[in-house]
């Protein structure tokens, strides 16, 4: 490891521009003649559109265009789609209702886009938006998925009877039922995973520009995957063919999943630009983000876990109802299925598992992947069950987990996944030691003397990252492959540009990806630039989500580096009159091993471009491309321990200690990994203690601003005790597993296990707000 190579704590190259206000986001983009858009959104959760009158609005000052869904349809713009086909257990395909980018006949949630208003200024567009007259006929709304599938519930899409999108299963029902029947003990729980709003720091935005002279479209958008956006907009939404559409995702201020999907606004801005003849920019305000960003989680599960007389798990049966909101967002179908049920084996050797998942339409914002996506829901189910089972069985939570750990690899679970490597005892031991688990009894007694309730809880999580082997996901219904591409361009003077299909929206790729190159050639990190986020620069890529940029994106770079290295060695061998096998590249020099013969790196680069003296038959240049398709998922895992102290008078929970012991495989930059863990834990603690999206019975979002939606603040969190162990991932050339989601996956059950331990209750709803905790304490007294 050099000071800038793999494993070094290199300060983030991109931070200088971010912290000095130099970042360039979609809202910073200015195109000559650009106008501003405001969307008129439905104030009703469920209503028929009887009439839209835009005359008054069109006559308002500065207005360039007021456009409706009817005009959009007339121009052949397609409906939004869900890109992952799931079949119900009866073999029928999922029942996908139409999602028009601008609603035509019906609105289905508060925030559904109906009309776009384009004007000289945003203020004028707002004024005109207020003048658009829409006559609605209100319909009854339903927001709770368990109610939406009851007979007689309001019908949201004609295509989905009783609002049921699919009724899907995974695993062996018979074997699982038999295990439960013959069990020595069965733990049963109803487990609710609360709905969350992603809350990226930068709201969504889009700038659509149709260039009539070139007959070409450009879309600046807040996307985690600009190439996917281009593909979907071309192939399904009929906006423009791929060769006439450039998508740019510049600096993006956080995504957490919510910026994976292609939303109505970017499609409508592109179409409106052609329609009005001017570039059209839209930037969401915060309440628009609350209303219309894809939300996360929202599961209700009934779970049974069977044990034999030796406390070994013999079966797990899970019945989940997942709320997908008013429309099927791009990857909504795979989150509660292949990203959820496939992880229900956790770190445990479970012989029989059966999961049944029903997905349901409701009159709420669409629900899709949010940091962790399915895996937090699976971990929450499993780790709440393990804790409750340990209490029921009268054994220590650590010992029950240890007894059931998978210890030999590879391990085939009954729910598709084949774990390649792991060492769960090591993480558990590290976490318990860091938490001084043995000293807890004394700390609890000390707290009791102060009138406080102390509790401790753990969570042993596993996740499947490095999404994903293309053939495997294809066989499960994915509409795309999940490989990644990279191009390494060595310039004539030896500086290097790496073009990647991964997208950085906070992850620090400009630093970590450059560290990989520095490690390989010994060139200074400042001579390496990472280029991403522009379909005109990078040929193709699948973007960033599912902790895939390290395991998949960097593996593609490593492959391209292999090719560059091989060619550079050939050139050097030729120039130095040495054997190719004797050439080594280190510290910016290309050397003949065991001699003092060497060339500076830049001279090899230059030679490749002057092409005056290349090996016979060699093409000039030093630029290579690679596509990397992973052979398996990666399986980061770890153990989190949370200790809480509760004030019984107010119900206020303080996290007094939080320990994370993670196994992420090889690590490129420990500082960036720690940052990912910190942020992930903050979000997980947010879910457990603070965050909740609530709709009232009429489908109005009650938590549509920070006055009511509680974001975690620094003061809500202790200083984390984090550590990593390392069993390298055997599946990719770098041995990387991924670290982006672990914190959000592992922490909610640890927090809730600690709170229920402190209170002596079986369960408590997330978020365990002071009011909720106080009510639980009061209930135990009655």
């Amino acid at each position: 490891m050099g000071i800038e190579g793999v494993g070094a704590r290199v300060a983030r190259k991109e931070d200088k521009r971010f912290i000095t206000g130099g970042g360039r986001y979609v809202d910073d983009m200015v195109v000559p003649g650009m106008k501003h858009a405001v969307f008129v959104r439905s104030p009703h959760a469920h209503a028929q559109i009887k009439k839209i009158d835009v005359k008054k609005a069109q006559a308002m000052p500065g207005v360039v265009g007021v456009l409706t869904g009817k005009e959009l349809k007339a121009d052949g713009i397609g409906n939004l789609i869900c890109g992952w086909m799931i079949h119900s257990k009866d073999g029928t395909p999922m029942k996908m209702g139409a999602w028009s980018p601008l609603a035509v006949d019906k609105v289905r949630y508060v925030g559904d886009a109906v009309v776009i208003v384009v004007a000289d200024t945003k203020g004028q567009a707002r004024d005109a938006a207020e003048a658009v007259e829409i006559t609605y006929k209100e319909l009854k709304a339903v927001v709770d998925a368990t109610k939406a599938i009851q007979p007689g519930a309001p019908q949201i899409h004609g295509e989905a009877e009783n609002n049921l999108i699919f009724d899907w299963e995974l695993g062996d029902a018979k074997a699982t039922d038999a295990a439960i029947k013959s069990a020595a003990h069965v733990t049963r729980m109803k487990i609710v995973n609360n709905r969350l709003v992603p809350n990226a720091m930068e709201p969504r935005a889009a700038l659509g520009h149709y260039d009539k002279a070139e007959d070409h479209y450009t879309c600046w958008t807040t996307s985690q995957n600009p190439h996917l956006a281009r593909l979907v907009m071309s192939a399904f939404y009929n906006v423009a063919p791929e060769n006439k559409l450039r998508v740019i995702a510049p600096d993006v201020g956080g995504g957490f999943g919510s910026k994976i999907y292609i939303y109505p606004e970017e499609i409508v801005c592109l179409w409106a630009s052609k329609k009005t003849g001017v570039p059209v920019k839209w930037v969401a305000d915060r309440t628009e983000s609350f209303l219309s960003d894809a939300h996360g989680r929202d599961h209700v599960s009934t779970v049974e876990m069977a044990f034999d007389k030796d406390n070994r798990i013999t079966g797990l049966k899970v019945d989940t109802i997942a709320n997908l909101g008013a429309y099927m967002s791009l990857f909504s179908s795979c989150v509660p299925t292949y990203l959820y049920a496939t992880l229900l084996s956790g770190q445990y050797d479970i012989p029989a598992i059966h999961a049944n998942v029903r997905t349901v339409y409701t009159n709420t914002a669409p629900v899709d992947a949010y940091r962790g996506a399915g895996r937090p829901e699976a971990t929450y189910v499993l780790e709440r069950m393990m804790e409750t089972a340990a209490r029921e069985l009268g054994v220590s939570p650590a010992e029950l987990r240890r007894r059931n750990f998978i210890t030999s690899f590879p391990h085939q679970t009954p729910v598709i996944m084949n774990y390649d490597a792991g060492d769960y005892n090591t993480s558990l031991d590290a976490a318990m030691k860091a938490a001084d688990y043995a000293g807890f009894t004394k700390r609890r007694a000390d707290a009791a003397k102060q009138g406080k309730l102390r509790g401790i809880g753990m969570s042993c999580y596993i996740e499947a990252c490095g999404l994903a082997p293309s053939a495997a996901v294809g066989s499960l219904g994915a509409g795309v492959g999940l490989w990644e591409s990279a191009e390494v361009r060595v310039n004539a003077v030896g500086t290097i540009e790496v073009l990647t299909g991964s997208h950085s929206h906070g992850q620090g790729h400009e630093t970590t990806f450059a560290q990989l190159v520095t490690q390989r050639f010994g060139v200074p990190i400042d001579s390496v630039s990472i280029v991403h986020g522009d379909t005109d620069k990078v040929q193709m890529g699948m973007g960033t989500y599912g902790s895939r940029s390290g395991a998949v994106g960097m593996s593609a770079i490593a492959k391209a580096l292999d090719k560059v290295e091989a060619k550079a060695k050939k050139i050097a061998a030729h120039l130095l009159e040495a054997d190719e096998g004797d050439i080594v590249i280190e510290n910016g020099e290309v050397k003949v091993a065991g001699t003092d013969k060497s060339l500076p790196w830049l001279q090899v680069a230059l030679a490749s471009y002057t092409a005056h003296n290349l090996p016979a038959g060699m093409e000039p240049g030093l630029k290579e491309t690679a596509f990397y398709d992973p052979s398996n998922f990666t399986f980061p895992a770890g153990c989190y321990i949370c200790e809480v102290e509760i004030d019984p008078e107010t119900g206020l929970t303080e996290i007094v200690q939080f320990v994370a012991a993670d196994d992420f495989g090889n690590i490129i930059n420990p500082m960036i990994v720690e940052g990912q863990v910190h942020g992930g834990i903050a979000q997980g603690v947010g879910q457990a203690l603070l965050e909740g999206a609530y709709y009232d019975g009429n489908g109005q979002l009650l938590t549509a601003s920070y006055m009511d939606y509680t974001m975690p603040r620094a003061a809500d969190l202790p200083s984390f005790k984090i550590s990593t162990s390392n069993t390298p991932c055997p599946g990719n050339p770098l041995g990387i597993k991924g670290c982006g989601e672990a914190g959000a996956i592992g922490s909610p059950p640890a927090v809730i296990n600690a709170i229920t331990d402190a209170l002596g209750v079986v369960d408590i709803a997330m978020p365990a707000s002071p009011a909720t905790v106080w009510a639980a304490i009061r209930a135990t007294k009655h």
Partner: protein
Amino acid sequence: MYSVNYHRASSVADAAKQLKNGDAKLLSGGMTLIPAMKTRLAAPSDLVDVSRLKELQGVKVSGKTVTIGAATTHYDVSTDEKLKKACPALAHLASLIGDPAVRYKGTIGGSIANNDPAADYPAALLALGATIVTNKREIAAEKFFKGLFETALKEGEIITAVTFTAPAKAAYQKFRNPASRYAIVGVFVTKGKDGVRAAVTGAGEDGVFRSKEIEAALAKNFDASALDALKVSAKGLMGDLHASADYRANLIAVMAKRAVAAANA
């Protein structure tokens, strides 16, 4: 935000004159008004800014009498050395309002004129038996706060200062709304020559109120233990997403006890 005419008043008298323009509103720190305008929930035709008027600034302490100019920021109240000696509880309360940005901009006059049912100052002024001074008259706090976002202020009336006699003992304890950090319940207790007063913010359906039951219990014995048997009724208390009326009733008792303990500390 809709378009609006902005006036920077040169004096209180000038402000009163400018307030006669259309549907004019007085602007002080703008901590509530500006966000409401940005989201188009408020649409005044004119804004009359009094936040820079020297005559409305500053804390004066003369013997036991404290006078705070209406446009004094929460930060200035929280850090005023004279006030910290005369009535540390009020300086402490100001330090708990919002976040640093709010404390540098928000003012005591703006806060009480808005009379948000979860704001901190109304509880203090009620418990301190303060007088609200306007450009036209003096109003006792008791008569000033009238229900949710309602005050005794008449059209064109401008708060210029608040004044009160520093009590022998006082303290404020609040339990924050986890999202907004406003008070879910805040209790301000005082013990002065007129006896014990306890005012509650954040909880009442009609806004800030004095709790007779707390005052009665403390009148006999100004000690936290005097409230051990206190049962606060949930009747007339707000219930919302963050806190039921029952929870608020519990918090009133808990915060009152902690406030008394702090006042005696």
